[in-house]
């Protein structure tokens, strides 16, 4: 007799292997559907937004308070030493400052010449606090406490401390997921600021511990790009706004094909100690295909 046929007087229970089969089909279906569209994302994001995000917010607030207290105690001792050292430094810096003032006039004049806007002053930004990190060890993404209600949308760029952090990949009503550029599955189209050569920056799990990311496909036929050059997001990227600082070139290697170069970049953002980020609410303008 088949196990799913209901016997008289017995409560109907579905055998586990059938349940496994049904849920497997459901999962596969969901994967296929969400691969292309985001039909399920909206209702699910809303539900978990109201169930989980308040707790995460509370815990992260408490955690922040605790780590601040413990840091304060540790710091008092070091602060005394640091104070003495800093006084000496002030003297040196005031001298340097006067020199830099002179440079600044020169820089302003140069900027006018290049007609380069002040870096990201023109974009509208929203500040957000990080309330949760990726629960796995494979990718690097985190959850922030602002969502659709604060005007966030998928693909908005996220910056912190003057550098690119990543972009928003999923939004709920009161939360959003940011996938950072050091995540293994992320590629960013970038260019070197000095020579405007295009390159592709990609995250790498192997280098995540060292706080490094890799770049590939740098066509630098004139060998002008050197270590320490600034790398910014390129104009041709369809997700990232142009001219956001990504980092500085750390090492350059010539590829085996002798045409392109690859190497390492040190990101401008310290991804280890990130607690607040800025979300740029302007989206990259794209041509809508009809």
């Amino acid at each position, binding site marked *: 007799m088949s196990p799913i046929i209901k016997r008289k007087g017995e409560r109907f229970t579905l055998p586990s292997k059938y349940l496994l089969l049904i849920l497997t089909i459901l999962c596969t*279906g969901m994967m296929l559907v969400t691969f292309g569209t985001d039909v399920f994302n909206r209702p699910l994001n809303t539900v978990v937004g109201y169930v989980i995000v308040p707790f995460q917010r509370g815990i992260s607030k408490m955690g922040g308070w605790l780590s601040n207290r413990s840091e304060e105690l540790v710091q008092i001792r070091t602060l005394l030493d640091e104070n003495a050292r800093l006084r000496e430094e002030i003297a040196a810096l005031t001298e340097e400052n006067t020199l830099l003032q002179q440079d600044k006039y020169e820089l302003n004049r140069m900027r006018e010449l290049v007609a380069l806007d002040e870096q990201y002053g023109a974009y509208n930004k929203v500040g957000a606090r990080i309330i949760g990190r990726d629960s796995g060890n494979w990718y690097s993404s985190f959850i922030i406490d602002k969502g659709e209600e604060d005007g966030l949308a998928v693909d908005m760029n996220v910056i912190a401390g003057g550098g690119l952090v990543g972009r928003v990949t999923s939004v709920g009503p009161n939360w959003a997921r940011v996938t950072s550029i050091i995540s293994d599955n992320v590629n960013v189209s970038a260019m070197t600021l000095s020579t405007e050569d295009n390159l592709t920056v990609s995250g790498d799990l192997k280098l995540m511990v060292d706080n490094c990311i890799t770049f590939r496909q740098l066509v630098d036929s004139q060998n002008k790009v050197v270590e320490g050059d600034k790398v910014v997001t390129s104009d041709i990227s369809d997700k990232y706004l142009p001219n956001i600082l990504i980092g500085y070139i750390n090492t350059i290697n010539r590829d085996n094909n002798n045409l392109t170069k690859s190497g390492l970049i040190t990101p401008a953002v310290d991804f280890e100690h990130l607690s607040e980020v800025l979300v740029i609410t302007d989206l990259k303008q794209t041509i809508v295909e009809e």
Partner: protein
Amino acid sequence: MLRKVVVTLLVLTCFILQCSVFIGLAFAGIIPNLMIILTSSFGFMRGEKEGLVIGFFCGLLSDIFFGGFLGFYALVLMYIGYLNGKFSRIFYPEDIKLPIALIITSDLSYGILCYCLMFLLRGRLHFSHYFTHVILPEALYTIVITIFLYPAVLWINNKLEAIEKRRAKKFV
């Protein structure tokens, strides 16, 4: 009913802890996998069905927040829960060796599966590096957490079973 509420709360608590508190306790950037502990311990304590349902919801939660698309982690954890349920026939609450062995096997196979499906398919071939730097540390850290978390889960399960037995007696 009571069981459903308690287990739901347990899953939510563990998930929230994993993506907030445990980030602060990470060793070399590696965090333990509480979802695996919950899924496999309910699997071998309660059988295939409960294991697979809990695995499904644990995975779905990770999918919604951190997955690229829905269903991947849900599928993986569901099968882990189901396979752990196969061992419920030889499980005795007094014995700690079987749970530890099952959880470490589950976490290792979860890591290897994740590597194969998410990294190997994208041409990241250095398995030995990922094994020694991600999969193995995660499994070891998970085992350390298991030593503390598993007795708590076992205690909750025993309490629930006692309450269920008492209720069943009342109806007889």
